[in-house]
């Protein structure tokens, strides 16, 4: 058990004779704490990452459901206006102007196409989700029916299995 004043375990292993690794880590920790605290994105970032982290998924069936849930959130392609930026200094200004003009000129054409595509994406995602739900439901019912039939045809074998199942841990 660590004492309340014990320094946190080192996160970085930097084996350099001329570098004070403790001081470096302390400085980085302070900066990171300030960033995470200041940024409203701190918790939002963690939430998104948790939502997408595969470590929470154990098998193929869970993965299909997990994937479908993500697809339901992601199928909508963003076709709204967005800030057009350039890092090229003075040259960047005319480039930015040109890109903004092109975007405005083409919008009447692309918006219609993309919004129709979005509608199709939404319908496809909904159809896939319905298919998956249906097959999940069907598998559940079939599994229940198999267990029921096994109970009818091999009652003794199932009885014998019971103590083993009870000791089977998780």
């Amino acid at each position, binding site marked *: 058990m660590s004492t309340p004043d014990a320094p946190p375990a080192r996160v970085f292993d930097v084996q350099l004779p001329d570098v004070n690794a403790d001081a470096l880590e302390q400085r980085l920790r302070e900066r990171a704490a300030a960033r995470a605290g200041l940024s409203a994105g701190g918790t939002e970032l963690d939430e998104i990452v948790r939502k997408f982290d595969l470590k929470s998924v154990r098998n193929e069936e869970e993965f299909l459901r997990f994937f479908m849930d993500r697809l339901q*959130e992601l199928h909508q392609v963003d076709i709204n206006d967005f800030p057009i930026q350039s890092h090229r200094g003075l040259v960047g200004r005319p480039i930015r102007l040109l890109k903004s003009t092109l975007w405005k000129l083409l919008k009447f054409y692309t918006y219609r196409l993309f919004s129709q595509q979005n509608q199709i994406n939404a319908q496809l995602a909904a159809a896939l989700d319905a298919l998956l739900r249906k097959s999940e439901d069907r598998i559940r019912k079939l599994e229940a029916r198999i267990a029921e039939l096994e109970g009818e045809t091999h009652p003794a074998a199932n009885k014998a299995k019971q103590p083993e199942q009870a000791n089977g841990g998780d």
Partner: protein
Amino acid sequence: MAVHQLVAGARLGDAITNEALALARIFREWSPQASIFCPSKTLDPKLHAKVMPAETFDQIADPAKDTIILHLSIGSSIHELYRNWSGARVILYHNITPPGWFSAVAPATAQLLRSGLEEVRQLAGTAHRVWADSRFNANELEALGYGPVEVLPLVIPLDHLELPPAPHIRAVADGSRANLLFVGRGAPNKRFEDLIRIQAALERMEFPTRLLLVGSFGGTELYASLLQGMAKELGLRHCHFEGPRPQAELNAYYTAADLFLCMSEHEGFCAPLIEAMVFDLPIVAFDACAVPETLAGSGVLVKEKDNPWLIAEMIRELQENPTLNQAVRDRQRRRLSEYQKRDLTAELNALLGDLPH
């Protein structure tokens, strides 16, 4: 007397194929008959001049005089040749990724890995010599009852890194952002999620970086689309899935990169770390499996990666603090020079001992 090698698959750019080709150069100096064999269906046609189909094995290899080395990495039909061989046998173990990493996204791959692990267990005690390409891998075999296992650090032919970088890739080196590079196949154990999370922290800090992910997602396409969805949801503008690249283009990515970032949680050696050292890139890598052994005290080893802001700050420090950046790269250069000055012929002679070679 010749030393033949058996590999489960032969592909250009694959680390095990590269090692087998490098070892074959030495074995052919000892005996021109020394060959590499691979099942036809996993043999890249571009390698036909250098790797023989497994069907020709019986015509070329002679159990009375020759030695075979089985590169053990996944379940394969090539293991049958090894089992039926009555001559001298060596196993060279390259590690098998725990199947659990793949059971959700690629169940077929998980099954192959499971059968590979089962075969590793079954092959215990069948070889005259057992080698592994890292101490981590050797320990794994010893725990499975293999007895003493010798370490032959993965042989990475570095000459292909001298190929001129493809010019069209240099565009990413426009100086506007620091390029963070990861090279590796799209496998869940490589934890691309963590790389994306760190890039997200950097973008929220408004520190200009670009994450370049080079490697194939063949067989794990669902994982790729999940990662792309994650990057989109996080609003990332500078996270690029570059796919698999030929050597000249890969060299261009290494040339354009400012830092090599690896958050993988399972590596039997991790050849890209050595390649990053060749290109003089400071390395930030998670402390997992054989990674610390490959880095051998160099690079920045990350012991715990729950806090992406902290790792992002380390990346920023490496970019903004030239003294630290230089010190890390100097230490890596010393590590690389230790790796490069090995005498492979002497190592192989010592490891083979009295086996025919």
